[in-house]
């Protein structure tokens, strides 16, 4: 477990350094953007962070279903860990998006469908974390969090489809049958996505380690309490 975590940590570092190199040295500045074209480079890590948010919340969704079916504590721990990581990456999306928005639209924030649904998503999983930290007994709290984790996921496809369903000023990078990026830009985005996926895996292993140790700690404390 320790070895696997170290290996993933090392791969994450290497791929992230490569991604940074590609973003700043390899990816071209788009020629079809008139104002501040270099700001488009925010897209690589902004989109990657959004992808990890979706992936993390999908893991919460699946793990929550498996927990409700089996009542196995490991699924609850996995859901809790993934939700926290998802919130961290969605925070990155919500912080970097407005910076791009200020440069491109001259506004930090607009109540655009994509921006609004992403903010709602962030609040949903923030509420999920609050539920997890509530004073309820373990079993009840895990059940409640699992139900919330399943219902909350409904917003993920809405966020993804928001720019396709409604009129929006948010750019569409991937549209059916076409990609709005040059091959070099696409390579950079692809490597950034891989880097962030490894970062997610590394965080997940760390977070699961902590959760496992906490459970073991609680077990020992419980035994000691029963003894004395």
């Amino acid at each position, binding site marked *: 477990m320790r070895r696997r975590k170290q290996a993933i940590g090392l791969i994450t570092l290497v791929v992230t350094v490569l991604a940074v190199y590609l973003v700043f040295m390899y990816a071209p500045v788009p020629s079809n953007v008139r104002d*501040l074209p*270099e*700001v488009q*480079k*925010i897209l690589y*890590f*902004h989109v990657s*962070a959004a992808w990890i948010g979706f992936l993390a919340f999908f893991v919460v969704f699946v793990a929550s279903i498996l927990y409700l079916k089996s009542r196995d504590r490991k699924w609850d721990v996995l859901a809790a860990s993934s939700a926290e990581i998802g919130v*961290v990456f969605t*925070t*990155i999306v919500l*912080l*970097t998006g407005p*910076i*791009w928005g*200020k*440069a491109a639209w001259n506004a930090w924030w607009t109540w655009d469908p994509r921006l609004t649904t992403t903010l709602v998503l962030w609040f949903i999983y923030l509420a999920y974390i609050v539920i997890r930290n509530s004073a309820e007994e373990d079993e009840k709290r895990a059940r409640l969090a699992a139900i919330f984790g399943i219902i909350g996921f409904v917003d993920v496809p809405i966020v993804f489809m928001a720019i396709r369903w409604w009129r929006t000023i948010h750019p569409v990078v991937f549209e059916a049958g076409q990609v709005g990026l040059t091959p070099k830009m696409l390579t950079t985005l692809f490597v950034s996505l891989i880097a962030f996926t490894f*970062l997610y895996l590394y*965080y997940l292993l*760390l*977070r699961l*380690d*902590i959760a496992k*140790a*906490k459970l*073991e*700690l609680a077990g*020992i*404390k419980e*035994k*000691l309490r029963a003894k004395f």
Partner: protein
Amino acid sequence: MSYLFAAYTIIWVVIFLYTVYLWRKQNEVATELEILKRAVEDK
């Protein structure tokens, strides 16, 4: 350029803070677990 710099600075700060938070948390829990295990063995 300053927008690009600001965006990537924020990304690295968030990643750095969360990584340090997880490392510290892991060390804290591991240390507490070790102490407790040793205490139980000593009894």
